[in-house]
């Protein structure tokens, strides 16, 4: 038997969290040490999984590990990866590692803070590697609990309300998924919760499939989020602590789009094909809406939060185009773009939230008009923000360009009208350039003189993400090779 690296990687953070519970009352330094060590080991595990890779052009999953759980109803502990989930696993491990490095300055109840992050990491990784629908649902729900306590416990002034809104919104949102899972289970013959079997032979047809699809779309659109169920996002982001925002935007939103591919697209493909024009239209609208609302923001964190609505709209558009595409080439192209966009968004938005958080730590405000000339005062922070902002607005050579190019190219081939979505790249350029102009260019304001530039902890947190931003932009094939191995055979 090969070494069960998937399960080890999956439960390492949970082990760290358990250890922290045993060591209650230990000083913050120790708690952060444990957190960084365990998330670091998890990252090594994810790299190991990456090194094992996925076989090219083979249908299905690899690195599968399986233990019977409730055999009478066909539920089991089953984990494994394919070209869609593996990049997300690696991205998740990276983001948790840098979040915990950045969080090393948290003094207040540090042990609980780190333990919650580690719990959340296992839940997120579990959602991506689960090959059993019940197991997925459990991990999917546990992410809510972890994020609820992080926002409610370590957020800003309005944190209680924001945390509750987030929790109720997404909890209510995820109930339809449970119904869909049960429908898929009851429709399968013999009854099973095994993702592999459901995906290989989608059990539902006709109206049942369409109803199950609609239920799943509701859940995943709330999570992604898509207009009009996105309003929890800016509130949660403004009140969440910086590292919480990084994980929320970087990882939790991807659960929505990952579910869209794994569940909605793969388990009810025909229904999705029928619904694709509507999904695509909603995605285009949501992407443009997110871009415009972001343009209307002056709070830097809300601005970044709304650009997530824009970027995630592109992902949903890519998936819808893949569902509707009739030729395998276009389908793979759009899906490649969607998956790469998920990874790029995680890395770039993670960096942006870290940088805005660093600004807030210094100035105790995120209002862009209260800054000015920061590029002269804190050049390292300033140039890092410029780099991340240009990546987010889709500049070539940085992370988002390749993904958006693929999504848009696929879109034009399938829905020429939807090409109007490219307007989004002009609007995002406008909003980031405006933010840079107002906050970073110009004359430094008097009362900010003496602001300190980035320290070692902050550099250690943000530099890896910026390096990845450039790497994904210059050599997108490093990730796309893995993604493409799966996407070209994802749908029969």
């Amino acid at each position, binding site marked *: 038997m090969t070494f069960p690296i998937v399960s080890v990687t999956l439960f390492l953070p949970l082990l760290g969290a358990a250890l922290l519970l045993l060591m209650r009352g230990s000083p913050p330094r120790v708690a952060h040490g444990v957190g960084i060590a365990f998330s670091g080991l998890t990252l090594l595990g994810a790299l190991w999984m990456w090194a094992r890779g996925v076989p090219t052009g083979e249908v299905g999953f690899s690195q599968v590990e399986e233990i019977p759980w409730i055999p009478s109803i066909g539920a089991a502990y089953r984990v494994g990866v394919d070209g869609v989930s593996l990049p997300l696993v690696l991205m998740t491990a990276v983001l948790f590692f840098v979040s915990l490095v950045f969080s090393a300055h948290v003094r207040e109840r540090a042990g609980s803070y780190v333990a919650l992050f580690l719990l959340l990491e296992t839940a997120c990784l579990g959602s991506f590697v689960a090959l059993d629908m019940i197991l997925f649902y459990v991990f999917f729900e546990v992410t809510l609990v972890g994020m609820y306590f992080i926002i409610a416990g370590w957020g800003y002034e309005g944190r209680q309300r924001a945390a509750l*809104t987030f929790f*109720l*919104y997404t909890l209510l949102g995820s109930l339809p998924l449970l119904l869909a899972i049960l429908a898929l289970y009851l429709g399968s013959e013999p009854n099973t919760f095994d993702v592999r079997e459901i995906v290989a032979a989608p059990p539902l047809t006709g109206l049942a499939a369409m109803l199950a699809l609609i239920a799943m779309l509701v859940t995943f659109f709330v999570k992604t989020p898509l207009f*009009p169920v996105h*309003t*929890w996002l*800016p*509130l949660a982001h403004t009140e969440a602590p910086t590292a919480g925002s990084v994980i929320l935007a970087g990882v939790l939103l991807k659960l929505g789009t990952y579910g869209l591919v794994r569940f909605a697209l793969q388990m009810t493909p025909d229904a999705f094909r029928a619904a694709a024009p509507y999904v695509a239209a909603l995605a285009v609208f949501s992407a443009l*809406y997110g871009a*415009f*609302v*972001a*343009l*209307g*923001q002056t709070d830097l964190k809300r601005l970044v939060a709304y650009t997530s609505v824009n970027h995630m709209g592109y992902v949903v558009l890519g998936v819808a185009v893949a569902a509707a595409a009739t030729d395998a*080439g276009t389908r*793979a*192209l759009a899906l*490649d773009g969607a998956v790469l966009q998920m990874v790029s968004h995680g890395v770039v938005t993670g960096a942006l939230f870290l940088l805005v958080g660093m600004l807030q730590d210094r100035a105790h405000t995120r209002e862009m008009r209260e800054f000015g*000339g920061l*590029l*002269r005062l804190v050049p390292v922070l300033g140039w890092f923000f410029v780099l991340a902002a*240009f990546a987010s607005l889709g*500049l*070539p*050579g940085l992370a988002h*360009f*390749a993904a958006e*190019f*693929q999504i*848009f*190219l696929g*879109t*034009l*081939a399938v829905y020429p009208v939807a*090409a109007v979505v*490219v*307007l989004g*790249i*002009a*609007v995002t*350029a*406008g*909003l980031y*350039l*405006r933010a*840079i*102009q107002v906050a970073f*260019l*110009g*004359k*430094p304001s008097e009362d900010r003189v003496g602001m300190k530039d980035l320290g070692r902890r902050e550099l250690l947190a943000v530099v890896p993400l910026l390096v990845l931003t450039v790497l994904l932009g210059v*050599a*997108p*094939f490093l990730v*796309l*090779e893995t993604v*493409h191995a799966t996407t070209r055979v994802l749908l029969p």
Partner: protein
Amino acid sequence: MIFTLAILAPLAAAALILLLRRGASALALLGAGAGLAGASVTLARVSGGAYPSATLPGLPGLPLRLVAEPLTALLSVVVAVVGFLVLVYAVGYMKEEGGKARFYAEMSFFVAAMQTLVLAGDWVLLLASWELIGLASYLLIGFWFWREGIPQAATRAFLYTRTADLGLYVAIFVLVSRTGTTELSGTLAVGGTAATVAGLLLLVAAMGKSAQAPFQGWLQDAMAGPTPVSALLHSATLVAAGAILMIRVSPLLTPTAQLAVGLMGGLTIVVAGLIAVSQRDLKRLLAASTSSQYGFVLLAVGAGSPAAALLHLVAHAAMKSSLFLGAGIFQHARGSTAFEDLRGVGSERRLVFAGFVVAGLALAGVLPLSGFFSKDAVIAAAFASPYAPALAPFTLAGTLLTAVYVARTLRLLWRGEGEDEPVAGIGWMGVALAVLVGLAAVLGFAAEPLARLTGGEPPRDLATALLVLTLALAAGGLLLGWFVLAGRLLGPLGVPAEEGFRVAGGFDGLVARPALVLARMLDRLDRCIHAGVLGVGGLGLALARASRLADERGIDALIAALVRGLRELGGRARELQSGLVHRELLLAAAGAALILVLLVIGP
């Protein structure tokens, strides 16, 4: 792969400068020099018939390609020559400025990105470098980002061009999804409606980059950057990119698209020419002139003569960079580029002025300088094209306007008096200027070999009558510009021309402000939606509270009352059992009597 040296050498220089943070100018010169050597060797090889190319990994099924063909190799040399000389000049110009590492790194990066653009053999790489030169110019225009007005100029330059770039994006999607390949040469033969649509979309992108009407506004604001940046931007990189794109895709253009390209070029020749005549600032005048001259290039493409377009592009690169380098020296001498401050600077610095005059007269089309040949090639092409009645008048008007603003500039620089300051680094600046002026003078004689190299039809010669007419127009324009004040010349057009013919507030009024208003409205809407969702949640909470109240006050109270009643009843019943025999006997007897009565009156 020696031809990639044109890209890699400046790129490596940029990276090294950022890493070492010292010897910036030397490293930049070294990179640009090596790039120039690479480009020259490549051109020599290509003219010998060997076309090197390279394929790089890109996206799945869409590899990146670099190709050195006659056209791309020639453009690569143009970029390398101008880039190198501008950097030589910059050594002098930037002598007393801070932030050298950043300046030279960004300039080297600019050259590398532009070289990638001209050598790109596929649409993805072309689009990537197209956007990267936008980034480089944003950074360089905003080089002094803490100074008044500079952030706005940089932002505007990037936003104008990126908005127009949407045309390039969609054109590429159309071409690639129709032909299934991203290879540039493989998509040019697509034909039909797709070709027309793509051609028009590409035109939009080119108009944005080459500052064609109605997108001309950003270029004048961009003058706020260091003068070497302007020289590079106008002659061989950012602004040239639009014209270069149209030359490269000229086989794609259908008659409809050709006419549109020609008309937009023609319109810009006149509009930007009028703007140039009315300017009160040397650099802003040169900027408007650049738009106008690229109008000539586009018009030639529209007239179906990419060879004439290329010739004018190359000649303009030499002429316009010379003019900017001269302007930069004047700027250092007087601390300003406003004509008011530059009075008499020409008569003080005669050598520089002589160079400036040569380049200016070349631009005006004076025999035998390069502009004469290149402009006449464009005019000949316009007259020979099927759209001659529509296109030719623009070229003649443009010839006149060019001569007017050149003569006006020369007069403003020559006449009057002012205080000159000593200029540091004049040696470096002078050398670069001299070489470029030399090129501007003689490049016209390269028309034949240029056409032979690129394999196109050589530009036609003008008929004698036309030749006389254009020379007369140039001479007349020069005289008008020298002797007649601009205000009187333009009449009622003067004020709108000086303001750059901003229709309805220009880009700001038509695009930027409405977008911001829309954004604010949607933001308010979004807060309403959120309030609505919270309202639904609140309604749920209110319902819950109401039912809790109902529970507490209603059902609970009822049950409590019931319990209380029963307890009271129990209490009373207990009182009956007093333990006193006589009372209990009485009760028993009464009970028995009651039972008896019930039995009797019962059934």
